[in-house]
């Protein structure tokens, strides 16, 4: 996680997909699971599930551990929850809004600006 330039950005980019979000929710609720179990009822192919898991892995959200013939996937972050991801998402919105506020109050030509 420390190696990533912007964990929050990667987290919600990775979670901005229904299949990946469902995978995270499943791992969050049910604990570590094999690709077979995760593909079951996912509505997409096993290959697609693997690719989605790899995207989540690149964002530091899950980790695949080889066990026998297949990998078992688990959440990478202790206590990672949808609640945290949501909060990071909303925080990001505030960061952007406050930067716009900064430009708005600091950049205007004089008292009153264009709204006078």
């Amino acid at each position, binding site marked *: 996680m420390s190696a990533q330039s*912007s964990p929050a*950005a*990667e987290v*919600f*980019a*990775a*979670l*901005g*997909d*229904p299949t990946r*979000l469902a995978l995270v*929710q499943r791992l969050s609720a049910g604990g570590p699971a094999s690709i077979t179990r995760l593909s079951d009822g996912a509505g997409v192919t096993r290959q697609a599930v693997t*690719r989605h898991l*790899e*995207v989540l892995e*690149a*964002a530091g959200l899950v980790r695949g551990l080889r066990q026998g013939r297949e990998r078992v996937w688990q959440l990478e972050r202790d*206590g990672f*929850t*949808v*609640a*945290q*991801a*949501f*909060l990071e*998402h*909303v*925080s*990001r*919105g*505030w*960061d*952007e*809004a*406050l930067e*716009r*506020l*900064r*430009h*708005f*109050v*600091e950049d205007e030509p004089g*008292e009153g600006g264009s*709204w006078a």
Partner: protein
Amino acid sequence: MMNTDRIEREILLRAPRSRVWRALTEGQEFGSWFGVKLGAGDFQPGARVSGPLTCKGLDHVTMKFTVEQVEPESFFSYRWHPYAVDPDYDYEQEPTTLVEFRLDEVDGGTRLRVVESGFDLIPEARKAKALEMNSNGWAIQMENIERHVSAVESRG
């Protein structure tokens, strides 16, 4: 362990406190930096404020909040439904979050502190749904990162 109930932000603005106050509590001013079309006029306690978002991809969404407290040039707060961007979802039944702005005069300008709290009471399913909608949500700029992640994905 991250606190999941509140967000806190602090920013130093190189502008007089009166200027920042106006940007926060006058409808058109608030709208121009926040990205929502609001009518002119100062926010009053108890007022229900609403208008369409102006940011790309979210212009079908009406933003609403109810003003709570207004203490001139020092404190302003409102309640709303955070990230309420699904036009087909009824947010009214859900608890709101409280957004508080505190202003202090400091050397060189104004310190603004923003706290949004009450997230723990928002249903988990709703949070998940908001994340799903992320791709066409605030984060148009996130598309770049998404593309980057997709590139990683296709490289396998």
